């Protein structure tokens, strides 16, 4: 699609016009209990025409990408802007859409299409078989999602951006049963910007055998103990902890109140930036769109702002918010390039992208060996937090008791609850690079109309003290 040509043929007068084309193809394959459960694909392709008039943006997202379709969309988007401008929340100028030109491409070894549907089914089938380590495994499934996205953006103030993404999300899951006890262990459904090299049969079968083993182990494990104690979280649980109790709380559009009817508000106020001690001084959090293979890396956000790494929390102090150009203008607060849309049919809003906890000094052994009594938890299973992002309760799939500096027996149904800033101020040790894991999920929901978007979260293993921990029913 020649977007520049389309843009040049739009004959309406407006303060600014932008065309954002997204073509995304998702291909998913699922094997369950030795049989194909689903082999499907979906391509979504369209253009959002955005027009600025009277200080108000209006959009028309259309599947009709002909010249007449785009012309009609531009005229109607302008009319939307004009009718709404009588009641605008904020009067914007072209500054909200900075000029940007450039390209981006995910790094990968094996391109989409380089492994056939038949081969992927065969590899997932092998994974599924490997999950069935014993007849206690009553259900096993292996899942792969390949996403290819192309993003093009042009505007009347000279922006011209092309970004290509290749992403793979996979998951492996084993449910074990003994009488009326059921336990499920998974690979955590994590996604990365990566190629089809992910579908490596021996890696997958090894991983799956471990997952199956732990599912069975959980059947015969004791309940996680109840009490206030030390807690150590693996990166695939930290991911959720960062996402819910840092990321969403710091989105500037939430702080400004845009989300109050849906995802909620935030306990953070604009005056907290630069002053609030969010956590202990071991806490360093970055917005980092430059990490190779992390799911939400990119060069530009969907408003055309160039993306770069920024400290959000430095030595525990809150220094910067997660707000794109519109939020930065509205709030006069420093932000990041995170004005993002789920697709061509939704308008961009402030999203998280990659939000990472930087590695610290402690080895895994340093952390465990200094704990008298506590629980180590892996892989998120349950998540819930209030609309201000204060009171949370999270659960993990797999726990291990720590006694006198050693990991001992496995415990099932590990859960914990807390309140955001006291929790982060209880951050006692931060693992070093050897404990670091990069994770991501395609399933963060937010916005009205609703949008589901990809986020990445990388973290080392972390220790928290004085945490309220408990088990299952």
């Amino acid at each position, binding site marked *: 699609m020649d977007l520049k040509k389309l843009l040049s043929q739009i004959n309406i007068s407006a303060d600014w016009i932008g065309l954002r084309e997204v073509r995304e193809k998702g291909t998913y394959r699922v094997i369950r209990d030795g*049989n*194909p459960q689903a082999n*499907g*694909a*979906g391509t*979504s*392709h369209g253009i959002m025409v955005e027009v600025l008039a009277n200080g*108000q*943006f*209006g*959009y*028309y*997202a259309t*599947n*009709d990408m*002909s010249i007449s*379709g785009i012309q009609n969309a531009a005229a109607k988007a302008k009319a939307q*802007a004009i*009718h*709404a401008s*009588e*009641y605008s*929340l904020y009067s914007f100028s072209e500054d909200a859409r900075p000029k940007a030109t450039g390209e981006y491409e995910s790094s990968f070894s094996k391109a989409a299409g380089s492994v*056939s*549907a*038949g081969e992927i*089914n065969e590899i997932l089938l092998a994974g599924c078989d490997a999950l069935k380590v014993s007849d206690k495994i*009553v*259900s096993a499934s292996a899942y792969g999602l390949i996403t290819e996205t192309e993003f093009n953006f042009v505007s009347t103030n000279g922006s011209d951006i092309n970004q290509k993404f290749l992403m793979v999300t996979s998951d492996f899951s084993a*449910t*074990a049963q003994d009488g*009326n006890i059921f336990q*499920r262990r998974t690979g955590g459904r994590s996604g990365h910007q990566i190629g089809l090299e992910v579908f490596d049969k021996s890696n997958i079968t090894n991983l799956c055998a471990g997952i199956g083993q732990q599912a069975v182990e959980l059947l015969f494990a004791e309940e996680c103990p109840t009490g206030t104690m030390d807690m150590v979280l693996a990166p695939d649980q930290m991911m959720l902890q960062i996402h819910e109790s840092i990321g969403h709380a710091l989105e500037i559009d939430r702080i400004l*109140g*845009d*989300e*109050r*009817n*849906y995802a*909620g508000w935030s306990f953070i106020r604009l005056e907290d930036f630069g002053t609030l001690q969010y956590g202990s001084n071991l806490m360093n959090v970055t917005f980092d769109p430059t990490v190779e293979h992390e799911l939400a890396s990119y060069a530009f956000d969907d408003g055309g702002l160039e993306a770069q790494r920024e400290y959000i929390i430095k030595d525990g102090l809150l220094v910067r918010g997660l707000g794109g150009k519109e939020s930065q203008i509205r709030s006069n607060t420093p932000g990041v390039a995170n004005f993002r849309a789920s697709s061509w*049919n*939704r308008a961009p*809003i402030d999203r998280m992208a990659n939000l990472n906890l930087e590695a610290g000094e402690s080895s895994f052994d340093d952390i465990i060996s200094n704990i008298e009594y506590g629980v180590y938890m892996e892989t998120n299973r*349950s*998540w*819930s*937090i*209030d*609309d*201000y992002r204060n*009171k949370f*309760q999270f659960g993990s799939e797999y726990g291990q008791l720590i006694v006198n500096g050693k990991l001992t027996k496995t415990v099932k*149904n590990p859960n914990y*609850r807390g309140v955001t800033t006291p929790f982060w101020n209880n951050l006692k040790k931060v693992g070093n690079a050897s404990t670091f894991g990069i994770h991501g999920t395609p399933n963060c*929901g937010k916005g*009205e*109309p*609703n*949008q589901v978007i990809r986020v990445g979260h990388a973290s080392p293993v972390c220790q928290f003290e004085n945490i309220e921990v408990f088990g*299952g029913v």
Partner: protein
Amino acid sequence: MENKFNNISDKVFALLNEGEYLTLSFSSENTQFIRFSQSKIRQTGLVDDASLELELIYNNRTCGESFTLSGDIDADINSAQSVLETLRVEVVQLPEDPYIVMPENNGSSRDIHSGKLLSVEGAAKALTPAMEGVDLAGIFASGKIYRGNANSLGQKHWFSTETFSLDYSLITADEKMVKATFAGSKWNQSEYESFMTASIKRLEFMKRDAIKVEPGEYRTYIASPGVRDILDMFSWNGLSEASIQQGQSSFGKMRNENSKLSPCFSLLEDFRSGSVPRFNDNGEVAPDVLNLVNGGLLENTLINSRTAKEYDIVSNNAGGGEGVRAPYMSAGELSEAEVLKKIGTGLYLGNLHYLNWSDCIGGRITGMTRYACFWVENGEIVAPIENMRFDDSFYNFFGENLEAVSNKVEFNPEVGTYESRSLGGTHCPGVLLSSFSLTL
């Protein structure tokens, strides 16, 4: 739109070879969105979207692919043809699928609901002035929604509707909120304005200073919108037969351990209101009414034809994910006027927020109170409460702690818009619980 779907269907089915079976699913919408914050317009626009999915079956193997339709009929037929070619290449590479659901022709249907909507030019002016003098955040969505399904044996279903919803929160200066949804298919300006006035009046209750309640067990009334959030959980590792069979369902205890809920609790799937199509992605039509939990006993689970084949049971034509598409919880005896008196001393919870299984197999759900939630003493509202976390099993609160069910079933429209506008909603009453567990 219907003609376009029929036209593409006819052309694509004509391309099929011997032994190939094809099912087409069509989905489309023309929507206006206006997003409000501080009773002003934050973002606004229009969305036209349409997609077609092809599901090919050949030699006991199946695969599917969907694509965005452009609206140009020739281009769309070409795209469908090339997707069919891709599926033909893929389907022969796949392992055999023993639980494949073959298409059938059990008769066609056509279900068209017309409405009267605001014009896209006039909506901002019709909506905004009534919000004056109050802080409102929310979303207006309005437009047409189409769903179609056809298969190569000649079966065809069509559903279209025109609906709108304004889903909003009103917020006091000290951040107390009430929630409301004005939804329907025929816009009536004066009804809208009096609905808004009534919800602004409700906000007055919220202006008293909030009180903090301690974690513990409380007598609690949960109003219909809060009950809806709990019932939503039953579509996620809940009433799905596959989920029970695969050891992941919170209802496994009812099947395996003979656990029961209160005789006051009955939940059915009821399509009679017509707000959501009865046909699923395979074009199979669900019964008008299906008892799920009847008087506290698990009477039916949701079984799609694939699950039926795998476990050798009878399908009730549930959807792909075996979720509850048209939930209806039966009314009880408790009258609205009696609610506060029957609480006595305890909690009135208007809405809940962010529910999740904290122990799915045990039926334990955690979540937050939100919006209009009050402390009640001696049958009278004392003040709103600060939001609290609950963590309790539905085997308790819909079991022996379910004291009464209100006699008024309310409709809570589904206003979700992930990827596209949702249809339908949940019919349910409020519930009075002798005990409900708050934890943080």
